[in-house]
């Protein structure tokens, strides 16, 4: 398989990464190189092998539903680019 420029732009859009003028061509070539490497695993017939998500095949641990953390709202918002009245500010979405 080989990616074309439209696919590269679509992936970049999904990943919310702006591509500069002319960058899509370079990225396409690099990704095609990487996918050629990845393609080596397509030759393996692994049908019937249970996919392994995790090195230990663990089940997610559950915990009791209770408050364990103190409120550190101000500490966490101190490092945000823009906040007001305890809220994170972003560009207006709804007119």
């Amino acid at each position, binding site marked *: 398989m080989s990616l074309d420029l439209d696919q590269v732009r679509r992936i970049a859009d999904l990943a919310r990464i702006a591509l500069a003028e002319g960058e899509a061509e370079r*990225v396409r070539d690099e990704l095609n190189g990487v996918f050629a*490497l990845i393609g080596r695993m397509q030759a393996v017939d692994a049908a019937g092998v249970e996919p392994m998500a995790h090195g230990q095949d663990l089940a997610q641990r559950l915990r009791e539903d209770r408050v364990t953390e103190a409120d550190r709202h101000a500490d966490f918002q101190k490092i945000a680019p823009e906040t007001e009245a305890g809220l994170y500010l972003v560009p207006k*979405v709804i007119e």
Partner: protein
Amino acid sequence: MIDASLRELAGALAAKRLSSVELTQLFLERIERLNPSLNAFITTDPEKSLALARAADARLARGEGGPLTGIPLAHKDLFCTAGWLTTCGSRMLSNFVSPYDATVVKRLGEAGMVTLGKTNMDEFAMGSSNETSFYGPVKNPWRPEAVPGGSSGGSAAAVAARLAPAATGTDTGGSIRQPAALCGLTGLKPTYGIVSRHGMVAFASSLDQAGPMAKSAEDCAWLLNAMAGFDARDSTSLERPAEDYTREIAARGGDKPLDGLKIGLPREYFGEGLAADVARAVEAAIAEFRRLGARTVEVPLPNMGLSVPAYYVIAPAEASSNLSRFDGVRYGHRAAEYADLIDMYRKSRAEGFGAEVKRRILIGTYALSHGYHVAYYLQAQRIRRLIAADFAEAFTSCDLIMGPTSPRVACDIGDMAGDLIQMYLSDIYTIGVNLAGLPGLSLPCGFGERGLPVGLQIIGNHFDEARMLNAAHRYQLATDWHRRSPQP
């Protein structure tokens, strides 16, 4: 004192021959003098370090110190440290001061260790040479033109150049073991789940694991004792009884201390692609293990060649999901100009991430996208199970597996820049260990071309760190490769 082991430093501190403040000053002065050329540290804060050292001295004076109290160390800049910058080698986090400590930082701090600073690394730990750092490449102390390896290259260079007695690192596909090998250190990637990932900036969560980087296996064992342990804040942390990782090291040896140990040698680790200088040093090391009483057997790892392709689906897939949190809203870089919310995300991420990080996010996004998920992601997860099964099978006929850590000694800065695939393939011997969640260790076993260090890799079965560390320790008692240090 700069070459002293943690045991020797602890002894000097306990006997009051030396204070933690004096020791910390010694290393801070070396950092000030040598770091401008090495670029191993991104952040230092001598006042903070000295305050920690004074607290450690007070604790020692009260007789309340532990074995690590007062000993300085450096943290990879991927561990969140309250009050210090945590950049993860990226412009994205160039202004990020975490409101909390990573569990590893907290545990080592509670043990009384003194933070010297935060070490340089490949951006978001994505790289094998430290060249992807936004803060510039780190130099290998053995040869300033050469890379230190990556991604924990700053930690490796700092310890090798004796700017710190030890450092923390993280390993997703070889990022502790490979720089340890290329800089002549001992580094351990523990079994997945025994060291908490809480407060580590996430790259690929099913593979990431923190571990120690130091001058010897004994030093690594001391550090792992403080680093490992269950943490409710990491959902994949394992609930196991506490272990003393020095217990086998502490036992008496004799002249055949490894009598009965069965070492598996995978043919796949000694074939095409392995440089002759590395092969020579590794084979000589294995001969030394035989002299120490171990037996060697051949073990097959037939799917090892598939580990790099599978990794370059799984790790980018997890990274594309993990790094979606960097959106310019809650912390990190936000673009100065944008048209709307989506444009703010796109520009903040385009400006904040470097080329390699973007590449991996895009690979992962594609591999997980509609219509490709089965062909790529699920296939990679199936291959992952085949690789894990190969290791499990191998461990039915041996106790430890040995081979090279890296196919070559360190290359020069810029040498691999044009060949992405070659760079990815250089992690061939380390990646399978992460996929299988196994512990892996690298220790120095000689020198190759251009006088650069060669690393021997020891792979253990799950939870076999004490045995691996002991095997490495017995080798280090019989050899002196780990005592060599670069000039000056």
